[in-house]
């Protein structure tokens, strides 16, 4: 119940006009970013981050997380009305959402999408409220070996559980960790990998890389496609909203299942995209008539949206409790925390109570305000798509450049952003995932410090990572996940070897 008291305190921190206004601004910008093609949650947060540099950390994080909620809401609008997923995680929403719009039930589909988004996030926020303090107080006992083991676990699970080619994930991650090491070594003060360049002395800034990788490259990718679109306009009346809400209890099983899937995949690096598809597929499998899916069934909207939002929100749990982001956007928020001089990790709950509980309270408030906002303003946002991309694209480029420059006031960073834009474009096209790179770049120096501190502590003995039950089991789990495909294949082979015998026995 301590969490409850602290949460109330968090609400007290938030309920000022200034913060509420920032919240609205954040949500509107977020929905905007979610609706526009060529912009998404991570880019939006990265580009708008410089705006917050002069704010105090609490206002800044409230505004940024609201941009994130807004982007999550916004992705659903284009999926349903235009059959164009604004975000990768709303692809599954188009399966039933667009057919509903074609049948003239757009308002119903949108209400369902927003409501289930709200429910998904709410479940995840409840989880964060009660679980994050527990995990962080547990993690306070961690020493450098334990922290390194947790970082290792994060990296290994990306390699082992990701859908991409393994070597491509490894390339992306190793590159990120290497680039994180450029500049002055924090322990010895020596220069590394700078090749005598004064600009590289500062190191490669994480946010500059993100703006290039996600912002500029996304514009290049978007231009490749045909940008013509035709869609439905919709406005939502209170009557429709109420009738959808009245039916909600009927779908409790779908909503609950998707929330659980989403929370789980959000905490582990499965992500919102995987969660939305899994939520959809499971709803279909458990349904009495699976054939009606894809033809405009409301459950087909509930399931993926709930899962995507639960996952997007739950990704903030490991970030707050351990300092390890569960998604690309969470990684960028983490980068933001560091800019404001906060040290992400378990100590955050002790040293910056106001900040953490303010953030958690803003998740509740942001989602309620967001729900009301999207329900009432859908037609305006749908109309944004009328603005030609030729006008939007250069504005995004300019915003990216402003963002990249503002971080360190360096012209070099604008060039770096351009380079990362090209790299991101090529990587995306040949299937090298960018999320591991982002994560490695933001965690790189912390992972290295943890590794070196544990090595110094043990005198160079690698057995320190198995020196007690806790660190040993985390490290072992990391290796199990790293070789997960190999292990599961071995089990499959053994299973095949055993089963024919059994089958033969039962037949005889």
């Amino acid at each position, binding site marked *: 119940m301590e969490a409850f008291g602290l949460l109330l305190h968090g609400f007290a921190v938030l309920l000022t006009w200034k913060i509420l206004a920032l919240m609205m601004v954040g949500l509107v910008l977020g929905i905007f970013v979610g609706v526009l093609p060529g912009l998404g949650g991570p880019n939006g947060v990265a580009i708008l981050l410089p705006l917050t540099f002069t704010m105090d950390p609490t206002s800044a994080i409230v505004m940024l997380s609201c941009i994130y909620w807004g982007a999550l809401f916004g992705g659903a609008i284009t999926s349903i009305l235009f059959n164009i997923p604004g975000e990768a995680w709303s692809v599954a929403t188009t399966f039933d959402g667009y057919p509903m719009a074609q049948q003239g039930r757009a308002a119903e589909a949108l209400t369902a999408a927003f409501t289930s988004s709200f429910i998904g996030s709410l479940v995840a926020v409840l989880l964060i409220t009660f679980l994050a303090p527990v995990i962080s107080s547990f993690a306070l006992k961690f020493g450098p070996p334990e922290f390194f083991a947790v970082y290792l676990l994060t990296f290994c699970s990306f390699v082992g559980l990701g859908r991409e080619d393994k070597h491509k994930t490894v*390339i992306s991650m190793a590159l990120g960790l290497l680039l994180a090491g450029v500049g002055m070594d924090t322990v*010895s003060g020596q220069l590394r990998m700078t090749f005598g360049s004064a600009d590289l002395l500062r190191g490669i800034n994480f946010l500059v890389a993100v703006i290039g990788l996600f912002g500029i490259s996304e514009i*290049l990718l978007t*231009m490749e496609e045909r940008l013509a679109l035709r869609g439905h306009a919709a406005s939502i009346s209170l009557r429709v909203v109420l009738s959808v809400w009245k039916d909600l209890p009927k779908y409790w099983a779908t909503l609950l299942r998707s929330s659980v899937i989403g929370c789980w995949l959000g905490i582990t690096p499965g992500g919102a995209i995987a969660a939305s598809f899994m939520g959809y597929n499971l709803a279909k499998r458990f349904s009495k008539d699976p054939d009606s899916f894809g033809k405009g069934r409301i459950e087909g909207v509930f399931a993926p949206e709930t899962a995507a939002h639960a996952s997007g929100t739950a990704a903030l749990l490991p970030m707050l409790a351990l300092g390890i982001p569960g998604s690309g956007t969470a990684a960028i928020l983490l980068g933001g925390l560091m800019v404001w001089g906060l040290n992400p990790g378990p100590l955050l709950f002790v040293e910056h109570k106001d900040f953490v509980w303010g953030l958690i309270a803003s998740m509740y408030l942001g989602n309620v305000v967001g729900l009301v906002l999207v329900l009432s303003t859908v037609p305006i946002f749908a109309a944004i798509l009328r603005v030609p991309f030729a006008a939007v694209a250069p504005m995004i480029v300019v915003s990216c450049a402003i963002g990249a420059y503002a971080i360190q006031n360096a012209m070099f960073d604008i060039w770096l952003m351009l380079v990362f834009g090209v790299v991101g*474009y090529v990587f995306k*096209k040949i299937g*090298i995932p960018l999320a591991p790179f982002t994560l490695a770049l933001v965690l790189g120096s912390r992972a290295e410090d943890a590794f070196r501190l544990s090595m110094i502590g043990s005198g160079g003995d690698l057995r320190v990572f198995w020196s007690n039950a806790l660190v040993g089991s985390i490290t072992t789990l990391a290796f199990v996940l790293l070789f997960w495909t190999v292990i599961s294949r071995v089990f499959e082979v053994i299973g095949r070897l055993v089963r024919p015998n059994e089958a033969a026995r039962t037949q005889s």
Partner: protein
Amino acid sequence: MSESELEIVVDDPTAPEENSPAVTSNRTVEVVVSLLLLALALTLGYDNWRTGMGWDPSGPEAGYFPFYLAVILAAASLYGLIAALVSRAAASETFVTRAQLRRVMAVFVPTLLFCLVTQFLGLYVASFLLIAGFMWFVGRIALWKSLLTAFVFTALMFVTFDIAFDVIMPKGPLEAAFGY
């Protein structure tokens, strides 16, 4: 569904044609990227080896951690190189068609010029030129609309960042003439 229900229609007059010939295959690009990554890994690995990748009395030297990462990166890109050469699927996949490349270049080249102009004339002048030029040339939007949009957006950015939020952007002779 009847056509009259469609209420928002946006056209794309310069959309890339569907049947445009391929410029390169995914295989070629994967091979080139693997080679570049390999070269990068070797360069960084060498630099870290020079910095010191061993142990001194106080613990691991500065190059220790990144040296082994460079080894991992080199190994993974070597694997990627071989995988790309062997794979049949990658050879048949199109990386980019000629029409698509033309469109991508239509954004990339202006962006490159924008960065150059920013270096010499400041960000605001560059952003005005980029937006107006891009809307007019690439988007084929009326000149007065392009100029007006570019001016309003640039002015808005100036007021938001340089004045309201105190985030100072690079400036050139034009801003200097106005006393900023």
